[in-house]
């Protein structure tokens, strides 16, 4: 493992940087640096957040993607500033308290941001669409909706990476074969002892 220098927020900067990174779809250096430049510029990017232009997520809707089960299409309606990407989340309780799992960003087109998501678990889930201030990382607007996910596909499988071990495929046959050999050896030894004891006793007289 060669360590590659990768900028990543220290804990102090994390809360802000996390959302920044998320905003950029976790694209790493470029996005993070870009966001920080934005933040640093202050007067430029920040100007887009004048009160009149503040975006508002009014609704979020969830529907099956036609013809691509079990995918879901998440749609968020945005008013105001529609240039800032909308982040989609789903709530999980896998690790205790409800937590938002980022599903990815989408830039609104004609006031509607859409994202396709392949569910990885089923159940009645809460979906959230939110827009964060690129400068502070704070969520300024959000909307949530419930939807019952009925079909899901596992998110990740590692099986494809494995090269099968050639001897392992013998499996049962090899074990059975070896045990049969061991059995034959013990049987032969015991039979030999039996044959000698019986034979010698039987032929004691010529």
């Amino acid at each position, binding site marked *: *493992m*060669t*360590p*590659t*220098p*990768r*900028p*990543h*927020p*220290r*804990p*102090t*900067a*994390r809360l802000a*940087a996390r959302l920044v990174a998320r905003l950029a779809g*976790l694209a*790493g250096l470029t996005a*993070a*640096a870009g966001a*920080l430049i934005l933040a640093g510029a202050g007067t430029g990017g920040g100007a887009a957040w004048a009160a009149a232009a503040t975006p508002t997520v009014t609704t979020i809707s969830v529907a099956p993607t036609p013809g691509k089960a079990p995918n879901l299409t998440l749609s968020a309606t945005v008013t105001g500033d529609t240039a800032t990407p909308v982040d989609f989340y789903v709530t*999980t*309780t*896998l*690790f*205790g308290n409800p*937590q*938002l*799992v*980022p*599903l990815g960003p989408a830039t609104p087109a004609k006031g509607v941001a859409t994202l396709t998501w392949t569910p*990885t*678990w*089923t159940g009645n889930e809460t979906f959230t669409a939110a827009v964060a201030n690129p400068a502070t990382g704070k969520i300024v607007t959000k909307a949530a909706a419930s939807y019952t996910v009925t*079909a*899901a*596909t*596992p*998110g*990740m*499988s*590692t*099986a*494809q*990476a*494995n*090269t*099968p*071990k050639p001897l*392992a*495929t*013998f*499996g*049962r046959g*090899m*074990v*059975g074969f070896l*045990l049969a050999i*061991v*059995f034959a050896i*013990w049987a032969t030894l015991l039979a030999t002892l039996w044959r000698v004891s019986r034979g010698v006793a039987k032929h004691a007289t010529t």
Partner: protein
Amino acid sequence: MSASEEPVRFTGIRRAEQNLVTGEDATAGCPSGDAGMPGSGSGCKLSRRSLLGGAAAVGAAAAASAAALEVFGGSAKPAAADTSSTAGSSSSGPAHQWAMVLDLRNCDGCKACTMACQQRHSLWPSQEWIKVYTMTTAAGGTYHMARPCQMCEDPPCLYVCPVGATFRTDEGLVLVDQDACIGCRTCMAACPYEARYFNWGDPKPAAKIPGMPRSPDWPVPQVKDTVGKCVWCADRLPKGELPACVAGCPMGVIYIGDLTTDVAINGLGNVVRLSEFIRDNDGVRFQEEYGTSPRVWYIPGHGQDLNSDSATA
């Protein structure tokens, strides 16, 4: 020894429906790669009858005990096949396939994970179930790398255990039944990650917690002259709690996750989509060349301080 009849006393995790007799996905069974080999899945089942016949062949008359039936029994389903078999509906099959991601970009080698683990499991200082190695690169740089149990999908330690004391749950955790371990240490020889630690003398005393008897997922206190290893705090996971090392890492390096739901979280509350996180950050698995298919991904890095980086930017 009574545990040999009741080898698993689980609090929350179901034992894998996996044939421990042959290791099944070991040399005598199906590799986990079988999942990618059409039609091979059914060919790797060892019937109870044939195995009992085989046991008799080695003169093992005692094989007929109930415990033996337990060990011999079970369908042979490699865990990797489990993952794919759940396609279409994650409600059938195991709910979770646990995984870890270690974001080394944040690791400064403070060993808080090691200490949290040792405290929780009452371990001697030398028993570093999660061990932080300081590595040196060819160019002279250093980075820190925490090594928990890699929870291999193709675990060499499981295959070589002569009595099936090491087993794999259907949620992908490789655990040790210390009440069955005979202390042969072949697993220590087999593990390419040196993740196993033997109790060479008396284990560190541990206060008894009511309602928590020792079990493979809660191996506290350790058992003298048997092998122990990182269990990813298997008793906590079903309860939605974070393993001690994950919770104890002040840098948020260690993410515990679930391959099935594709979610991972670290001790600072950062939630990520597991597959995306690994893919976008070039996550790699340690020592892939051994074909063990670990469940731990590392994101390379050396504890760099992003603040200072950005300050110069």
